[in-house]
């Protein structure tokens, strides 16, 4: 009877029963939260094992509670009540700082152990020079036919990167006559200290971008000034680093990649958005609170938590004793894998998406391709591993387990996801925009280049980052292609074998060397992996929100 929807006359209108509807509603809510709650509980357990917050002195907790948590909550509440948008800006600043710092760690790793700063700088210059040539040629495009432009561009890149005669000549047995810009610079015998080179190659571009952002409305001189101010950050990093026990090179990179973006963001808010200046209260409170807390804890001698995720864990390699085991080579391997995956899957996936959405005729072939891309997205990852092994190792004779092989295999794995999400983004460009462009006499290429891609770009990027998040956690395909579970040093090139974070965790979990591996080191690895994943996803989410506001 309770489910009866008849009305009873009361107060003139009566009531309509909604019991079933309410029940249904709460069942749906339960279904929504089910997975989320269980994963959260699991992660809390894992984080507890890895970080062991309860091993800290109560005084330690109390100090940080008073110095950091209470002021932060107060500042947050104050800013939120004054201006909801400013609160978002402040939260974003903190998020940006955390994410930048994490990425700066990765970048520092790359510069310390994988790419020489000189090589990187030489590469940058060798790409920039023909880039400028290309721009110049394009500016005169009414006087030079397309094929001429194309030839000049290709020649400029080839000469700059490889010199004369380059790999083409090498294939024909002619040795190098004139080195390219890259060879010339990379071979300079008397180069300044590596950290100064890092300032040049990483800090300078960031300073240029940041300077023009911060002082965008204030003329050339202000922009130069702001840029110089920003450049001081990596310089200071390199100089101060050695005094606090960090090598100057990683210190420079961390200062550039980790400190510059949040500083630029904060400076931009402070200078250009006076209405939201109050937002900066939040990051300032957090930074000051953390410093004060750390200082006070040190003074009072309170011990912090005995976290397994500590500096040693992040910078050491695997060891047979749990206390000494570290994650460093696995982190580096994952970074290199992700770079390879992105370089491969992004252009191919976006290209396929643009073709399918804008060019493909509506015929049976297209529909077959369409359906099968969706199918590919559901193929188990082990199968992709098998494919990678069969294609690259057995058929093309590549060595197993290399970064290149792993990257290509994972790239194949996420390719359908990249394609599907990029198509979604491209499809969300309103038809009226295309009509407007075609109506102006634009060709298909011009419409795609000027209207479709700019409008869908952040959506495409969001989808790609989420797909990369999938790739970074994959284990099975890497096992299939023979990637080593454990490596003791970072790979220094793409043709070297490398482990990856999930592989290393898997190796620890199957290593019966002691309960600590099982109970402590594995959770520590999981915490790092999940933190990287969350950082990537948060970038994607911020991008997506910005993109939706843009609509």
């Amino acid at each position, binding site marked *: 009877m309770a489910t009866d929807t008849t009305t009873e006359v009361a107060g003139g209108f009566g009531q309509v029963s909604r019991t079933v509807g309410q029940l249904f509603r709460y069942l749906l809510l339960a279904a929504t939260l089910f997975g989320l709650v269980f994963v959260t509980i699991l992660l809390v357990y894992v984080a507890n094992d890895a970080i062991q917050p309860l091993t800290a002195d109560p005084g330690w907790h109390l100090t940080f509670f008073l110095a950091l948590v209470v002021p932060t909550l107060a500042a947050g509440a104050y800013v939120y009540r004054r201006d909801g948008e400013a609160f978002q800006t402040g939260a974003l600043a903190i998020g940006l700082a955390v994410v930048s710092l994490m990425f700066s760690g990765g970048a520092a790793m790359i510069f310390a152990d994988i790419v020489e700063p000189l090589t990187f700088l030489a590469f940058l210059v060798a790409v920039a020079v023909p880039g400028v040539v290309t721009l110049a040629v394009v500016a005169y495009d009414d006087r030079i036919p397309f094929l001429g432009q194309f030839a000049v561009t290709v020649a400029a890149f080839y000469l700059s990167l490889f010199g004369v005669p380059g790999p083409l000549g090498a294939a024909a047995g002619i040795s190098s006559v004139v080195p390219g810009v890259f060879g010339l610079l990379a071979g300079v015998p008397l180069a300044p200290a590596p950290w100064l080179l890092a300032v040049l190659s990483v800090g300078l571009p960031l300073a240029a971008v940041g300077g023009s952002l911060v002082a965008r409305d204030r003329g050339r001189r202000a922009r130069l000034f702001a840029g110089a101010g920003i450049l001081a950050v990596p310089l200071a990093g390199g100089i101060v680093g050695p005094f606090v026990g960090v090598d100057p090179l990683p210190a420079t990179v961390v200062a550039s990649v980790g400190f510059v973006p949040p500083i630029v963001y904060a400076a931009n808010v402070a200078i250009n958005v006076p209405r939201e200046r109050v937002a900066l209260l939040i990051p300032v409170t957090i930074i000051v609170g953390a410093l004060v807390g750390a200082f006070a804890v040190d003074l009072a001698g309170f011990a912090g938590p005995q976290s397994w995720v500590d500096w040693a864990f992040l910078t050491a390699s695997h060891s047979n004793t749990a206390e000494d085991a570290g994650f460093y080579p696995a982190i580096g391997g994952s970074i290199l894998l992700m770079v390879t995956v992105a370089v491969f899957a992004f252009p191919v996936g976006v290209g396929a998406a643009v073709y399918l959405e804008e060019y493909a005729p509506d015929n049976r072939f297209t529909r077959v391709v369409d359906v099968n891309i969706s199918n590919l997205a559901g193929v188990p990852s082990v199968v992709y591993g098998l494919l990678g092994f069969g294609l690259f190792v057995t058929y093309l004779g590549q060595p197993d387990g290399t970064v290149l092989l792993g990257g290509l295999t994972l790239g194949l794995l996420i390719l359908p996801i990249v394609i599907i999400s990029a198509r979604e983004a491209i499809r969300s460009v309103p038809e*009226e*925009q295309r009509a*407007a*462009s075609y*109506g*102006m*006499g*634009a*060709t298909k290429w011009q419409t795609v280049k000027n209207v479709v891609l700019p409008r869908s770009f952040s959506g495409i990027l969001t989808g790609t980052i989420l797909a990369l998040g999938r790739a970074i956690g994959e284990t099975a395909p890497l096992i299939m292609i023979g990637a080593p579970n454990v490596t003791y040093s970072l790979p220094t090139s793409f043709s070297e074998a490398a482990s990856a974070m999930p592989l290393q965790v898997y190796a620890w979990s199957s290593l019966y060397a002691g309960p600590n591996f099982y109970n402590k080191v594995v959770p520590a690895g999981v915490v790092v992996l999940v933190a990287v994943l969350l950082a990537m996803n948060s970038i994607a989410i911020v991008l997506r929100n910005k993109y939706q506001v843009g609509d």
Partner: protein
Amino acid sequence: MTENTSETRAESDGGTTADPTNDEMVIETDVAGATDDRDSTATPDPIIRSRDLDVFYGEERALDSIDIDIPENRVTAIIGPSGCGKSTFLRCVNRMNDRIDSCRVTGELSLRGKNVYDDDVDPVALRRRVGMVFQEPNPFPKSIYDNVAYGLDIQDVEGDHDEIVEESLKRAALWDEVNHQLDSSGLELSGGQQQRLCIARAIAPDPEVLLMDEPASALDPVATSQVEDLIEELAEDYTVIIVTHNMQQAARISDKTAVFLTGGELVEFGDTEQIFENPEHQRVEDYITGKFG
């Protein structure tokens, strides 16, 4: 002769229309009459001319044997009830119909004597000569400047783009409102301003013909009258074809009026004054005075 026409029409139409056959015959006869009439008052120099133009969406006929001569440097209004094929006709002129897969066009539509449906006509080149303004304002999410300069950039128009952008914005009666914010996004303008921005964008590369599909339907009365003034001014240099549901608007701004009625027929075409004061066909009069449609 008129008898003949009506018979063949009735035959060729087969049983596709549900209208009483009698009615249809009368109207068809009248169309033939209208054609004669038009010939006698023929404008010397039609820039757009269609003969026997049929358009189908799949199996469905949207335009039925349209014959029309649109004079140069005049405003031609197209009026008619919803679904009678006005937009379809407009899209024939710049071949935007090519973008609709199910759409099929037969017959002839020529621009300055050249049939635009000939195999050697590049629709992209055609659209550079025939600008279009759509029913809903559709500026790009780019700056105001870049919006107006879009056609100049993609068509590689010679000359000083800054000057052309300024000139176009002035002609679209928008310059005074936006000259201090050319770098801000075109989407930040009001609907009426956006539509005038779209008009500026369409006229910047200096097309020969301007097609406007209900350009004022999304605008308030003030913006509407601004756009109307603008159209009258544009007609000094351009051939404007404008679709509208607003009779007063058609009467006010156009030199010639074409009345399409349901079924995709062009029922009457002639000088605007004559159409509105003394239409030849009862159905046209009924439509104009609001008795149906």
